[in-house]
């Protein structure tokens, strides 16, 4: 009898937050009698089966006590395999589908998704391509711009100054959290930040910084049909909405102060809803995702997409969390992430090719 799995952790800056998301999902599934298998992915890329009853603090010093080491085998007949003993060969754990609760690369950028595809494990959330797109701020922004959605200017930080006026906000091109985001007054500060910061080393994008802009968020669920959550307006501290403000001292996003269904000027709410709907298909959203917007006066722009949001945006749904999870698990099986085809690879090319040596000569 196979049961759902919950995957969390991972070698990511958001490793800890992912554990909180994962434990919430695991506890909810366990409470509803689904007996989930909890798969903890360590900071050092090792896998362990752990108990759903654990608390976040049990992971604070590393792998919790009584964790069972697993190997993750990508390939036909693969999956998560225990170490076994001298006499017993372990079989992969029976998993109906996995709830992916990882935030940040490599659990939210297509790496894990690709490995799960290769191992033949169904999973929730974005497929590899959707995850990769969501994690690349430059590509995502360009896709939105191409579809005519409202977006602010966003450019790669290179040798020259940005083509628009400051002040600027510089963000890592890849990365899901607010880590590494800096505000820069002028073009020189942008270049300096990109050169110095370890977080911006793999690529940085620059956007105009609007001190007065507020964040708006809408979560989406994609199965059985697209549902948008209420619009949420997180309360913003001074300056950049930091990692600390967002996460430290609470249960992920749950503890962050926010206003649901805020009063919005003009057609903003409508623009936000239409854009979120468009993003859902453009960015191949699957499971639960969150689309973030920037609001300044009566202008609104699509900012980023979070393809596996903190706590799976539990706080934004008006249905029980188990219903959200069940929907995701049903989708994982009903809408597979792989559509590999070998059409055309029927041997014709091989038979008519002649010798390899001949091709090299």
């Amino acid at each position, binding site marked *: 009898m196979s049961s759902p799995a919950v995957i969390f952790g991972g070698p990511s800056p958001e490793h800890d937050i992912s554990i909180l998301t994962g434990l919430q999902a695991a506890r909810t599934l366990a409470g509803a009698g689904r007996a989930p298998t909890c798969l903890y992915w360590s*900071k050092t*890329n090792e896998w362990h089966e752990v108990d759903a009853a654990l608390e976040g603090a049990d992971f604070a010093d590393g792998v919790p006590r009584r964790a069972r080491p697993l190997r993750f085998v990508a390939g036909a007949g693969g999956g998560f395999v225990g170490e076994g003993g001298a006499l017993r060969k372990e079989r992969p754990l029976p998993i109906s589908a996995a709830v992916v609760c990882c935030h940040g690369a490599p659990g939210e950028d297509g790496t894990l998704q690709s490995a799960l595809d290769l191992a033949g494990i169904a999973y929730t959330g974005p497929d590899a391509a959707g995850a990769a797109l969501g994690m690349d701020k430059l590509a995502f922004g360009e896709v939105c711009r191409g579809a005519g959605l409202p977006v602010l200017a966003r450019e790669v930080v290179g040798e020259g100054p940005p083509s628009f006026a400051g002040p600027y906000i510089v963000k890592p091109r890849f990365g899901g959290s607010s880590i590494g985001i800096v505000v820069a007054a002028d073009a020189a500060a942008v270049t300096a930040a990109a050169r*110095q*910061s*370890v977080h911006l080393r793999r690529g940085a994008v620059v956007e105009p910084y609007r001190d007065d802009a507020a964040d708006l968020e809408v979560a989406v669920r994609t199965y059985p049909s697209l549902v948008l959550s209420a619009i949420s307006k997180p309360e913003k501290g001074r300056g950049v909405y930091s990692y600390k403000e967002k996460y430290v001292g609470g249960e992920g996003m749950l503890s962050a102060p926010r206003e649901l269904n805020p009063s919005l000027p003009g057609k903003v709410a409508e623009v936000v809803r239409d854009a979120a709907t468009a993003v859902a298909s453009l960015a191949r959203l699957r499971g639960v995702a969150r689309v973030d917007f920037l609001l300044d006066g009566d202008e609104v722009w699509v900012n980023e997409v979070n393809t596996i949001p903190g706590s799976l945006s539990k706080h934004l749904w008006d249905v029980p969390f188990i219903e959200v999870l069940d929907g995701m698990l049903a989708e994982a099986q009903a809408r597979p992430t792989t559509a590999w085809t070998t059409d055309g690879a029927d041997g014709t090319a091989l038979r008519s090719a002649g010798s390899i040596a001949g091709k090299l000569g």
Partner: protein
Amino acid sequence: MTIAAVVAAILATALADRRWLLVAQREHYLPGSAMRFALRWWRLGANRVLAAGAVLGVVLSPLTPAAGFVGALAVALGPFGFPLRPASPGPLVWTPRLRTLAAVTAVAQLVVIGAGVALGGGVPVAGLVALLSPLAVDAALAALRPLEDRRASVFVASARERLEGVAPDVVAITGSYGKTTTKTYAAHLIAGARRVVPSPRSFNNRAGLSRAVHEQLVPGTEVFIAEMGTYGPGEIAELVEWCRPRVAAITAIGPVHLERFGNEDAIVTAKAEIFAGAEVAVLNVDDPRLAALAGQLPVPTVVRCSAVARDADVAALADGDRLVLLRSGEVVADVALPDAVLGNVAVAAAIAFAVGVPSDAVAAALATLPAVPNRRAVTTLSTGALAVDDTFNSNPAGSRAALDTMARHATGQGKRVVVTPGMVELGPVQAGENAAWAACAAAAATHLVVVGATNRRALLEGAGSVEDALRARVIAVASHADAVAWVRANTGPGDVVLYENQLPDHYP
């Protein structure tokens, strides 16, 4: 009757073993620790009577098995005050290592009892075994040492392999105190510029560091900061043999773990093992012993750090309410003065420089130096009083600095409360250091809450040496929980409470 007396003694042994196994686990499985703590507990107040009863029962048991019951009962009940349900820092955890230790202890005890029964002295022998439970635990610890060493060396070998695979720049930090704080500061100063992983909390021995490498060293890490602690000569030498630092630092020397070293020169020598093979040595030369050491090291680059001398290689100086950081005499940062021991800041900055972080990046990060948990961290209690949490500290210099922190947060009318069980592991100077510090505390505070029995006499003596008019009211309580209850009942907004050190509940 005889059989019943033997069974009673065996049951008492099981109960006693559970206590001393807890001590073994809490004291890092060091042989000798069970006996050390057993003597501390049995010597306290009413426990002396109980101990006498236990001894008398065993001695008289050859005459009558009834005396054997008395002995067994005393061992089963005592020592009074020892937690039956240990909670701080946690309950007994039945790890594989503890199970092995418990099994070896129990088998040895049963063999001895069996031999006693066979030779016709079952009752006194079983009674003696019950009484000597801590000795059996210590003997099992010593016997299992080689086995544990072999097991650990397998784990260490794979940690070494992993470390070589990731190949980070390794920084090692040791010192009698300030290690964890300096490590936290250094990681913070480096974090913006390089991918850095510090060993977590106080994971600073062979087991902790190899676990940190296994569980924390993310592929792609550029700088690994390893905190290294030592209980005796040779331990750090063993650590740097596999966790080879390029940059090694000593933060401070003090009388910590003096009971295991004998004297402070031996501590300097043991700490200096960290420099074997290092390219850069970082030392806080405000300590004359470290200044002397700096002149003798065969390390290519020696960086002298100071919190007072401008001409040190790296200096972190207080200038009014500013912190000025100098590198080779040149000012590289001038930020608001943080509540930090500046010697640690200087060492942390020197480490950041040594791993290639530019001065301006260090300067920028210096303005946001983090508070280190449980180390003079300021929070507000539910009563509205301000608390200074220094519960991880057990050294004289840190304890004095904590009194300053309390004074800084005090308001004119409010109470200034110090809650402390005193400092431990200071060997022969423990009583003197606690008395001296208690005198400072009693003068600086309005209330001094003395927790537990471990240092009660020295603390009360020290406080008593303060002039009546200036002395804090002294309250003695049995446990940390009692102290917290006192604070809840007696403090409110405007008051400040310093929690100075907290001992695990296996301490009297």
